[in-house]
Structures are given as structure tokens and as C-alpha cells.
């Protein structure tokens, strides 16, 4: 019988995450840096019919941030909210106990929103560096020019035939979140496309 | 003037000055016994068989543009009879039989090439579906063979057998299937019908249908009113628009299908091969171009041009199937308007209006049907009754619930 210590969550991409520098080596360092955020607590929040405002208000009182506008995300102290569809949001935190986020969202949004735990369903990849934007344009039709996709913009799109949720977390850094089942294949594509810029896995 | 190597040589001696026009360009008469709307493959073959099989020559084919400007002039030329359902198989097999004697029949070389049609399968369920189809063909006495992976490899060694995302497990082959020089089909039928007295009138768009007390009287056209006792609609992609003129609403959607041709190269692929793990089918024209296509763009359209996403999908599938094709270049792409029906099968029927007959719903399988479609439509018009071969293609089958749905996609035309 296994011991509870082996409860550590296994990371879907682990066999691919070999730290190091790959692809073209250039003087000004690797064009992109890639890393995976794990473990995360993620939940989908969907407002109940006609409860959008109530839900937003509740979020504000409990977490200090209201629901973001379509195509946007907001950072709170313990929580990030990302728009991901009509009246639909990802809530994301780090370092919470298993199921904890899901549970308190349920209790605080009781009746005003439906909550589903997605912590294990999605893999979140961080892409940063001066070539990060160039890399993303190889996959998605979203226009990532800062004028069109500014800081804290969020979009659901497709990359390499795979559904990806993209947010801009800094001038030259993005977060890509996708279904875990595609993560290995997506990683292979992403790293191949990153080769010409040179990339570092951290 | 008959076409043959002898007339060819004798004309060569007279510097080809003696060749006559392949068909006349008559002005429309005021009235015809039968008017056919649509100078495509089906309209022209209908006229041809009305004259040939039923002795009805007081016929006009009205074409809004130039002869063969529609789908008959832009398809990927595949002919086959590898169908599964009782309503379909006998009809398409009859069509294949007619193809086999067509050139001698209408004295025009349409380059009917029975080079074999091979459909690949990649999964067990696909294999079982092909076995079912192959047996349906054989039960009707038609050739259909289920090939193993190794048999496929022998036929077409350069497919991706080793590195594929969806490994090839085998295929279903119809050896009698193949290709036909599409334009020549239109020209051969036009010339054949013309020589039997049919008036083929181009640049003549039908703009209205005159109906009096439940009976067809004639059509309004860009060349004036033309009376007729019987009116056959064979407008393919434009069927809904034409039928609307008679107050009919059809179970059809018009969709654009793209096709492509590569630069002309030396013999590269000898058969017609269809991918089973994506949308791609290919054959090589006698001129050397790889002629290929895939799936509909997917949205209703009357524009004869598609967009990039489907082109990319088709070409991705092409390279997945034949890695060596990678450095060959695409020369041209185009589109045509499909009359997609609600069950993926055609309609050849009478209507509730006396003297009005319907031929439509060909989806992207109507080229192979050209001879049988014209043959059955001619029968239906001449006898005012359906032939056994098109008995299942009735318009009311949807109301009754007797769909002929080979793909099992239901009332979603762009999935057929």
C-alpha cells in the first residue's frame, strides 16, 4: 500500500522538461525562455443566469478583484482571474492545498456561479524573451502587437491545431494554458518553432 | 463529320480548313417539347439520351454561361461505383457501365481511364466499414477488393508507411474506377446531342419559370421567353435559385469545394488514391498535373473560390500521405459550387407541378454520375415516371424518413 507522501502530483510534461539551452546560439542570449507552472490550482467559474454582477461583487469582496472584462485578466493578491469565454473565467492560484481553491470558490459564489475544478486538466507554459511574440505568431492568428494585445490581455485561440488560452503577463512574456493531454505534442511543436531563436528551458 | 484517325489525317492534308463547329450556335425557337436548364454534364447528357433513347429531339439546353462552365468543367474527374446503400449502388454501377462504352457511343475521346480507385484505411472500424461497402458492391456483382497494408505498399510504395501519425493499414480498391477528361464529357455530349437535333443555347440565363394552373408553360430567359411542355432542371449548384422560380424550397445547401492542380511532371502516381485520415484525394492528369482535392470549405457559398484554411488542411493531408510530394509545386486552385443535399444523395424526380422535373443534390459525387443521371432523368422526363435506378432518389424521401445516408451524418449538408 502506497504512502500518502507519494501524493505529490505528477507533472504531465516532466519527461520533456530538461533544463538547458537549445537551438541557435546567439550573442544576445536565447530568444525565448520556456517554463512550466506546476502545481497550480485552477477553477472554471461560470456566472449563473443573470448573476454576473452579483458574482463579480462577491469576488471583489472575497478576493479584492472583480471579474475582468472580455479579453482581459486581473491579478489579485492570492488569485488571478482570466476571462475565458462569455461570463466564464479561470481562477488561478499557486501553493494552495488540493481542492482548496475549488472549495472556497464554491462556498463564496454559492448560487451566483458554477465552479468546476480544472487544476489537473490544464498545463500552463510560460513563454518569455525578446522573441516570445515572434514565436507565438507561428501558431496563432491573434495579433500580439502590444497595441492590439496589451499587458493583461487574454485570448482563447488555436495554436498548431490545439486550443490554447493566452495571456500577456509582461511586455515580452506570455502564459499559454492548454489541455494536459495535448501538452507533450504542443511542447514538441513549440520547441521546434523556437529553435531558430534559440531557447532555454528553465 | 465523324472523328477518327482517318478524318484527322485527311483534314491534316487540307490544312484542317474543313473541320466543322462541334455544335451549332442556334437562336432559341419560341417553343420546345423539352427545355433543360443547365448546360453542364447532367443537362447535356439528359438532352443526349432524350434524343438517343427516346427519340425526343425537340429539345433545348439553356446554359447561362459557356458550355461546361460549371462543375463539369472544374471537378477532379474521379469515377467509381464503390457505394454501399441499395439506393445508390445500382445507379452508380450503371453509370460506370455507360462510361465504359461512352466514347464509341458519342464518338469523342473523353479519355475514360480505368486506372483504379484506392481508398486507404487506417483503423479497424474503417476497415470494417470498407468490408461492408466492398461486400455491398460484390453482392451487386461489382468489383471491390479489400487490400492489406502490404498489398497497398506493392501498388503505391511511396505512401508514408513508416512515419505516419495515422498508419496505413490497408485499403479498398475498385479497379474499374478511374478518371475521365472532364471538359471532353461536356463537349462530347453537347456535340452528340447537337448532331441529333438538340439546340444547345449558351449565354441564355433562365430568370423565371412560367406556371399556369399547376402546369409548366415555359421559361423567361435573358434571350426572351421560351415555351415548353416539359422542363427539366439540372442546375447543380444553382438548383435552389432555379427551383425558387417555381416556388420550390429544396433540401439543399450550396457549398464551395476547392480543387487544385500541380505543375506538370513526369508520371508520378498511376492510380486514384484517397487518404483515410484527412481530406485528400489525388490522381495525375494525362497532361502531367497532380489533380487533387479535399473537403468543402464548409460554409454556404455561391462564389467559385475558397480560402486558405481548407487549402492548408488538404495539402497537409497530402504531404502526410505522400511525403515525396513536398517539393512538387501547386500551380492553380479553384472552386465550384456543390448542391449538397441533406443526406448526401441526389434527387432525380418529378415534382408536384406537372411537367416540372428535378435533378439535383449531387454533392461532390455528381461527375461520375453524369451518364446515368442523364439517362435516368431522360427516362423520367420522357415517360413521366421514375426508372427503377432512380426510384430511391425521390424528393419526398426526407419527409418519409427514407434518407440515403452513406456517411451517417444526418441533415448537415457540409458533413456529407
Amino acid at each position, binding site marked *: 500500500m502506497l504512502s500518502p507522501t507519494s501524493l505529490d502530483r505528477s507533472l504531465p510534461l516532466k519527461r520533456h522538461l530538461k533544463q538547458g539551452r537549445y537551438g541557435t546560439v546567439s550573442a544576445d542570449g536565447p530568444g525565448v525562455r520556456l517554463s512550466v507552472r506546476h502545481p497550480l490550482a485552477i477553477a472554471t467559474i461560470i456566472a449563473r443566469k443573470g448573476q454576473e454582477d452579483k458574482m463579480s461583487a462577491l469576488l471583489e469582496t472575497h478576493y479584492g478583484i472583480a471579474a475582468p472584462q472580455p479579453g482581459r485578466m486581473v491579478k489579485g493578491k492570492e488569485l488571478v482571474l482570466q476571462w475565458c469565454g*462569455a461570463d466564464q473565467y479561470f481562477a488561478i492560484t499557486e501553493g494552495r492545498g488540493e481542492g482548496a481553491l475549488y472549495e472556497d470558490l464554491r462556498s463564496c459564489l454559492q448560487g451566483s456561479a458554477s465552479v468546476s475544478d480544472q487544476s489537473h486538466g490544464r498545463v500552463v507554459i510560460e513563454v518569455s524573451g525578446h522573441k516570445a511574440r515572434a514565436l507565438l505568431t507561428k501558431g496563432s492568428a491573434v495579433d500580439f502587437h502590444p497595441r492590439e494585445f496589451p499587458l493583461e490581455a487574454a485570448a482563447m485561440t488555436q495554436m498548431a491545431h490545439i486550443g490554447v488560452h493566452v495571456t500577456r503577463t509582461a511586455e515580452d512574456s506570455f502564459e499559454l494554458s492548454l489541455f494536459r493531454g495535448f501538452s507533450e505534442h504542443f511542447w514538441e511543436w513549440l520547441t521546434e518553432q523556437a529553435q531558430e531563436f534559440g531557447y532555454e528551458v528553465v | 463529320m465523324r472523328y477518327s484517325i482517318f478524318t484527322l489525317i485527311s483534314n491534316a492534308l487540307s490544312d484542317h480548313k474543313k473541320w466543322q463547329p462541334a455544335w451549332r450556335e442556334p437562336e432559341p425557337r419560341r417553343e420546345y417539347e423539352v427545355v433543360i436548364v443547365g448546360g453542364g454534364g447532367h443537362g447535356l447528357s439528359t438532352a443526349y439520351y432524350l434524343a438517343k433513347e427516346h427519340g425526343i429531339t425537340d429539345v433545348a439546353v439553356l446554359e447561362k454561361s459557356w458550355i461546361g462552365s460549371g462543375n463539369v468543367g472544374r471537378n477532379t474527374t474521379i469515377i467509381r461505383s464503390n457505394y454501399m446503400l441499395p439506393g445508390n449502388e445500382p445507379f452508380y454501377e450503371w453509370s460506370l457501365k455507360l462510361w465504359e462504352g461512352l466514347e464509341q457511343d458519342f464518338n469523342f475521346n473523353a479519355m475514360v481511364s480505368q486506372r483504379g480507385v484506392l481508398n486507404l484505411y487506417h483503423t479497424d472500424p474503417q476497415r470494417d466499414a470498407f468490408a461492408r461497402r466492398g461486400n455491398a458492391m460484390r453482392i451487386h456483382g461489382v468489383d471491390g477488393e479489400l487490400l492489406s497494408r502490404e498489398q497497398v505498399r506493392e501498388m503505391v510504395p511511396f505512401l508514408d508507411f513508416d512515419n505516419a501519425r495515422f498508419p496505413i493499414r490497408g485499403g479498398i480498391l475498385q479497379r474499374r474506377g478511374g478518371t475521365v477528361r472532364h471538359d471532353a464529357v461536356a463537349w462530347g455530349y453537347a456535340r452528340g446531342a447537337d448532331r441529333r437535333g438538340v439546340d444547345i443555347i449558351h449565354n441564355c440565363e433562365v430568370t423565371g419559370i412560367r406556371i399556369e394552373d399547376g402546369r409548366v408553360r415555359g421559361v423567361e430567359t435573358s434571350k426572351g421567353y421560351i415555351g415548353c411542355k416539359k422542363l427539366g432542371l439540372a442546375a447543380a449548384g444553382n438548383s435552389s435559385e432555379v427551383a425558387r422560380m417555381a416556388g420550390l424550397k429544396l433540401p439543399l445547401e450550396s457549398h464551395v469545394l476547392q480543387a487544385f492542380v500541380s505543375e506538370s511532371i513526369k508520371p508520378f502516381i498511376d492510380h486514384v488514391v484517397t487518404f483515410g485520415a484527412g481530406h485528400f484525394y489525388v490522381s495525375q492528369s494525362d497532361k502531367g498535373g497532380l489533380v487533387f482535392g479535399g473537403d468543402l470549405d464548409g460554409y454556404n457559398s455561391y462564389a467559385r473560390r475558397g480560402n486558405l484554411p481548407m487549402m492548408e488542411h488538404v495539402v497537409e493531408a497530402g504531404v502526410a500521405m505522400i511525403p515525396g510530394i513536398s517539393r512538387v509545386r501547386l500551380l492553380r486552385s479553384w472552386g465550384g459550387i456543390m448542391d449538397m443535399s441533406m443526406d448526401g444523395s441526389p434527387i432525380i424526380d418529378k415534382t408536384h407541378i406537372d411537367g416540372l422535373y428535378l435533378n439535383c443534390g449531387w454533392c461532390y459525387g455528381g461527375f461520375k454520375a453524369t451518364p446515368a443521371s442523364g439517362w435516368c432523368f431522360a427516362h423520367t422526363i420522357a415517360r413521366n415516371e421514375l426508372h427503377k435506378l432512380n426510384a430511391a432518389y425521390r424528393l419526398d424521401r426526407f419527409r418519409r424518413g427514407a434518407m440515403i445516408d452513406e456517411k451517417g451524418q444526418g441533415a448537415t449538408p457540409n458533413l456529407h
Partner: protein
Amino acid sequence: MRIRCPYCGERPSEEFTYLGDAAPERPLSNEPSSMDEWFDYVYLRDNPKGVMQEYWHHSGGCRSWIVAVRDTETHEISSTVAARDFAKGRGR
């Protein structure tokens, strides 16, 4: 083609899945007498050459169904609304 999703903004058509004509309305009655209505709804299409209302699904994006007004000859899209609002507009 580019389609303006009411939520995501303009995106190329490869992010969308097409369903078809949005004009037919699902009948409310289940009485045998309503059979013709149902038949029309499921099977008959105007299939116009020109402008039509049609359902698109932003399946590669926010997963909203939208109704676009598009010309089938030119492929020009003149307007889009969320299917929700389109349905409410019909009193659903």
C-alpha cells in the same frame, strides 16, 4: 474570411465551425399536426445567393455560438451577434 466574435473580436474563420442557416426556428409544438413545420425546420433551406443569417461556433476560441449576416456571393460579413442575444431577440 475574418469573423468578428462579439467576445473575442475579429478572428480568422479557421477558429470557427459552421452550422448553417439561422433563419429556421425550432417549432414549439410536439403535436402530429406540427409535422410539416418540423420537416421544414430540419430539412428545407432557402439557400439564397446573397445575404443570409447563419450560425457559426467559435469552437477554436471562446466557444460562443454566433449569428453572422453574410453574403454568400461575396463572403462579406455585415454583422455578427451572439446566438444568445439572437435567440432572445426572437423571444426565446
